[in-house]
């Protein structure tokens, strides 16, 4: 997995084999490395990301949003926000792209065995947590209770709706959805609360004992979620956050993503709150 550490290492040739729209500004791109050998041998830890290159546009760090199966296809859920992501969105199926990675530490799933897992996703934060959830469900027996709480701006902004509908039928996990504004019914028969994610937390019954929380979302979400979770009795070392920073290389060289004396790309992007607490500007 570390064989691509080189900053200037060449993005591996890859192709978009499928794409579909998840919301107005977000689409899921299914990308496969052109070399089948490498594609199959891709080992991914949930929470890791790749550097996604679009020729003549550049690169952007994108979380791996699902575990690559035996076909080695990467699920990359990309929101259009600027130069590179605009260009990615303009690419039709079949386009040639480049992939470096996977990079980053990912969630320490090995340490979490036997524990209850609370996944808290805000907006696009669902992307890495989806990979995590897939992992947990694939190894269901090794973990305790699994709860996913997911908040989106509005019903139309909920990503992976069909998949969520399916998950909501599962007995071996809990799913809670909330939207900030509900001007319409959520599609696909999803049950959905109205209000912000922290509010949802309050209304739901769950155990904090032997539980770890994994959070991913916009910067503002972290601040209030952490307060909330601590209020519920979560110790700082049971709260895991996946952070976003500007990144140019993904391998600890370009020096844009430091959080205190840690690098988001190589020490993270997943951090324990315990390790971020004292760091100015971390959240």
């Amino acid at each position, binding site marked *: 997995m570390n064989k691509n550490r*080189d900053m200037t290492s060449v993005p591996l040739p890859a192709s978009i084999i499928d794409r579909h729209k998840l919301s107005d500004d977000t689409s899921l791109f299914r990308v496969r490395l052109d070399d089948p050998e490498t594609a199959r041998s891709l080992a991914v830890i949930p929470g890791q990301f790749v550097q996604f*290159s679009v020729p003549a546009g550049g690169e952007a760090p994108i979380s791996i949003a699902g575990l690559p199966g035996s076909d080695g296809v990467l699920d990359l859920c990309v929101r259009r926000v600027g130069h590179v992501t605009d260009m990615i969105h303009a690419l039709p199926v079949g386009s040639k792209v480049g992939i470096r990675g996977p990079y980053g530490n990912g969630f320490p799933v090995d340490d979490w065995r036997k524990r209850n897992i609370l996944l808290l996703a805000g907006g696009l934060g669902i992307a890495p947590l989806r990979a995590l959830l897939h992992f947990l469900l694939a190894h269901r027996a090794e973990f305790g209770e699994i709860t996913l709480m997911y908040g989106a701006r509005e019903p139309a902004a909920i990503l992976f709706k069909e998949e969520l509908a399916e998950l909501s039928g599962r007995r071996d996990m809990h799913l809670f959805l909330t939207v900030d504004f509900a001007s319409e019914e959520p599609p696909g028969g999803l049950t959905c609360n109205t209000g912000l994610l922290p509010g949802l937390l309050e209304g739901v019954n769950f155990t904090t004992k032997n539980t770890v929380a994994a959070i991913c979302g916009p910067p503002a979400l972290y601040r209030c979620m952490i307060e909330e979770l601590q209020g519920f009795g979560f110790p700082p070392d049971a709260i895991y956050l996946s952070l976003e*920073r500007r990144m*140019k290389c993904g391998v600890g*060289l*370009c020096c844009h993503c430091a959080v205190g004396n840690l690098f988001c790309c190589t020490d993270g992007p997943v951090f324990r709150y315990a390790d971020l607490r004292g760091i100015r500007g971390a959240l």
Partner: protein
Amino acid sequence: MAMDFLPTGSIPSFLETLAPFGEVHGPTMTDDGVSAFGRIASPTGLRLDYQRTLLPPKKYLLPPVETVLTYSPGERYRHPPLTDENIVLFGLHPCDLKGIAYLDTVFTARGSDPRYRVRRQRLTLIGISCEPDENCFCGDVDAADPANFDLFLERTAAGFHITSGSPRGEEIIAALAPLLVERAPLPVSRRECAFASVIMAAAGRGETFPDSHLWEDFAARCLSCGACSLCCPTCYCFDIREYGGLDGATAERLREWDNCLFTGHGEVAGGFNFRKNRRDRFHYRYQHKYLGFGPTRGAVACVGCGRCREVCPVRIDLLELFKEEGDEQKP
């Protein structure tokens, strides 16, 4: 007594002897009167009595801008071939040698950057002793003792005592044999480092001077011109940009020196900035220079060359943070 002395008059022959090891570069003076490392075409171009060059030697390892990848539909992303020849970099002061050692830990320790590695292998480093001026403070950051050289020249009135620091250095000394004469060794001397203890202690305990009024003062005056980090031998932040060709098919990816005091350094999509103001950016700069992060965590990056103090148009000096602290410690 050792056969290690090169009389000053032998410098031209010395340069000739170096030629087979690579193109000789060293301190020169541009026609603008700027001290800069450049090719030494003839001994008269060499300025061994220089104080400090404007850009540090890092430009030989990480050029200010370079194409790191090319793209074409057939070949996809590729490294452009490196064309750099072997270079003998002559006349490096100990601080610059230490600066290169620091970059080595970042860019080669874990085999991180192939371009850096290749260029580094093609570089022969020849150091020379120096006399500090009012901007120098290498002693205070433990960078005064020569290290990380292939060859080092200790200067005396009549010439240079030569030490080798690597097998390549030995080779050069062997080639130099006819030029060397016998001379008594120099007495060991150490530089006064009044301030070293303060800096090292602060760095050691991860001091961030959270309450210092200097941050605001720096932030108010800094022009974000970038000079301090461009001219810093150990600053290596870089930006990556990619541009398409006019043929509509090919592209080039550039790597360019960046600076933590620029607006865009901590900015993410949508205009959110993790280091919104100059104050936050100065904390970042301090963090990198004195506390480190990533592979350099815990290492003091500053080598005391004094460049940032000299090139800052508004005379901002991070050392003042420690000075203030030093003052407070005095009874």
